[in-house]
């Protein structure tokens, strides 16, 4: 075979797997990365300040968002009309008139120096008069510049109240020369007004938002400090601790019943599997209808005369009952998933292995303990990992049974941060936290319930 052919043949598996890789990258890895980065990366954490008031000039420092600033100077700069908001702007007018000494002057003056007298239909100023300056010590003349900023050449001066025609309006953004207020020794730099909040005194302010990102634990700290974090984590772990052992015992019993091949055992399989077909929200609503004030449970208890009048199971005073209902609903809904995995595991145990155990005198309990459970270890491991991860994500059942505030869980907090509080970053921090817990539990199970390579059907 030629080299090219061998090469092509080697390429085939990669070509076959390429669509899956692209799919995973596009629809799984990329959104997950983007989502999780929100939790630890603050997009606008830092404000770069520049050596001179121009976008192209060198950065001299980065000041974190929220830092208190001392404002040292200000400067207006022509700006691009980019739709930015939160700006401090200056307007300059291009004016023409008769200047001091009777010479014709044309150039730029700040908007504050002209009182507009005439406007066209669109409101654009057409003509006005130069404002007078008050006070003795000031120069009564108004300086006209060649360009719409203070630093350009002076082309003439105008008397106060001199009539001028206005031919053009320039909008300028104010830049500030700022320095962190706490540290007078640090470098001062220029930043446009849109990123700053300058207080009324004109001398102090703070960084409103930055333009450069930074990795930060701030969102995670905010999550941990959130007053719902503790209860959410506690409830999640409590539900898990109550749910998983009971669920595994039940699932194992169900699987053994099905595997025993007694009459109707395949019927049991279908009956046990039915709840898999129901969504978790529907299961939550079902159990809500059982536990609610005039629900099934109260009707039965009332009918049997055990209680007088309905007992409010699902209220803020009875959070234990809510947790009990959550565990029950999850138990009803998801035990069969574990069962299906265990049934598959049981079917992989050769009949002769169990017959041998029976023949050599092992009772049913001994067979379960010495043969079935050890051989079922890989299946139990898979089911444990799956169930634990799903338990960290428990959500819809909680929403249905508690409304999402009386009893809350981690997934619910992520949802609340995102939709109610519009805080994507903290919502992501919760999601990241759930992911880390899931990974940690999977690693824990893989190590502690290690599937020994020896455990293989012979």
């Amino acid at each position, binding site marked *: 075979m030629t080299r090219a052919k061998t090469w092509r043949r080697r390429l085939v598996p990669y070509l076959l797997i390429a669509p899956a890789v692209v799919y995973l990258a596009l629809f799984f890895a990329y959104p997950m990365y983007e989502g999780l980065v929100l939790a630890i990366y603050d997009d606008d954490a830092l404000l770069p300040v520049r050596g001179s008031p121009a976008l192209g000039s060198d950065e001299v420092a980065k000041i974190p968002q929220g830092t208190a600033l001392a404002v040292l100077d200000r400067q207006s700069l022509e700006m691009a009309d980019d739709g930015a908001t939160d700006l401090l702007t200056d307007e300059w007018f291009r004016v023409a008139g008769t200047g001091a000494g009777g010479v014709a002057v044309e150039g730029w003056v700040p908007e504050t120096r002209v009182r507009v007298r005439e406007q066209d239909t669109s409101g654009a100023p057409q003509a006005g008069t130069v404002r007078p300056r008050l006070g003795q010590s000031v120069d009564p003349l108004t300086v006209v510049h060649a360009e719409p900023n203070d630093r350009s050449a002076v082309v003439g001066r105008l008397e106060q109240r001199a009539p001028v025609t206005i031919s053009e309006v320039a909008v300028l953004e104010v830049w500030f020369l700022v320095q962190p207020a706490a540290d007078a020794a640090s470098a001062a730099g220029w930043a446009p007004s849109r990123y700053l909040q300058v207080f009324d005194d004109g001398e102090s302010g703070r960084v409103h938002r930055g333009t450069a990102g930074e990795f930060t634990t701030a969102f995670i700290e905010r999550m941990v400090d959130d007053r719902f974090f503790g209860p959410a984590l506690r409830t999640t772990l409590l539900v898990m601790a109550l749910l998983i052992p009971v669920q595994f015992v039940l699932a194992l019993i169900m699987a053994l019943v099905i595997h025993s091949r007694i009459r109707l055992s395949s019927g049991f399989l279908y009956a046990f599997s039915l709840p898999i077909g129901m969504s978790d929200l529907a299961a939550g609503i079902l159990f809500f209808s059982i536990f609610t004030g005039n629900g099934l449970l109260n009707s039965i208890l009332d009918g049997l005369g055990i209680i007088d009048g309905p007992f409010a199971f699902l209220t803020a005073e009875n959070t234990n009952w809510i947790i009990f209902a959550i565990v029950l609903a999850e138990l009803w809904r998801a035990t069969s998933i574990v069962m299906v995995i265990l049934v598959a595991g049981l079917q992989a145990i*050769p009949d*002769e*292995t169990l*017959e*041998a*155990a*029976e*023949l*050599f*005198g*092992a*009772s049913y309990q*001994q067979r379960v303990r*010495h*043969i079935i459970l*050890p*051989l079922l*270890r890989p299946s139990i491991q898979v089911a444990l990992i799956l169930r634990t991860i799903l338990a960290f994500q428990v959500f819809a059942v909680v929403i249905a049974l508690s409304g999402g505030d009386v009893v809350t869980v981690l997934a619910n907090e992520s949802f609340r941060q995102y939709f109610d509080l519009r805080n994507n970053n903290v919502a992501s921090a919760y999601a990241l936290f759930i992911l880390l817990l899931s990974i940690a539990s999977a690693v824990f199970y893989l190590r502690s319930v290690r599937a*020994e*390579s*020896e*455990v*293989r*059907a*012979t």
Partner: protein
Amino acid sequence: MAEIRIERVNKRFGDKVAVRDISITISDREFLVLLGPSGCGKTTLLRAIAGLGMADSGRITIGGQDVTYLPPGQRQISMVFQSYAIFPHMTVRENIGFGLQMNKVDKAETKRRVTSAAELLHIEDLLDRRPSAMSGGQRQRVAVARALAMKARVLLMDEPLSNLDALLRLEMRAELKRLLADVDATTVYVTHDQIEALSMGDRVAVMRDGEIQQCDAPNVVYESPSNRFVGSFIGNPPMNFLEGTIRRTGDGVVVAAAQHDFSPVPEVQPLIRALSGDRVTLGIRAENMETLPEPGPDTVAVRVEVIEPLGAQNLLTVYVGGHRLKVSTHPSVPVTIDQELHIRFPAAQIRWIDPATDKVLYTP
């Protein structure tokens, strides 16, 4: 005493009858082989003895105790399974000791019996290994050691050698025979391999369609099959069969087959004479025919079609009067293809079969 009595045992799976009304007594310490083609019910019968598939009707007793519906764990039996059924999560030591542990044999005794069973099968070096790292032959030894360590009164074996390759099977066959000679258990051994059955068993029970066709010592089953099936199933090559026509002469009979008149031995003459039709089947084994280079008295001329040298013998396929016969000759007899040979049929070696019932008429 662990005599196994099986009385009128039936077992069916749905519409299929697996074991049909079988009765057999296996005496204490006997080695009985159940032999038959797949689907003949031999494994089903073994499982009924083991208690892994209860009989539908009938009675099974072991050492006088009725065990028909006793669970397998209480029958004081042990078994070697076809797939070995070794517990993959246990070491060899734990595997061999499993039955003893379950039966609450004390620790020191368990250890002693595990060690001696392992030594018997030469696997004492493997005791702390796990089966997954072992070859088929080694697993097989573990399975046998596990069964022997039980020191049960009955030892059942379900095609224990069928998963081994040919060479290993030969080796294990001899070793098993050596081991089991020293074991006090009554042994029932299921196989579809006639060589295994003939070489190992005290008695061989040949089964077909859920019934025992014949149960006798290996040489009897081989020499004197009770019916056409046993003759054709046992032996390699199988027994030759010739269709003959009965000519009743005076007080005797002559059978014409393969262009030759056969005179049956005197004991058979009245039996053939009594047959209702005029057809009878002759059966003779390949090695029981004499081949002669020259025609002699009582010989049949045949043409050699195929010569298969098998080392110890040459197997010839010869053609005579519409029949093909397998004849084995000593390698020193020179033969060529298409050569004419002359064959003599020793009257005492011919088995006479009633074509209506396929039963052998007379067993010497």
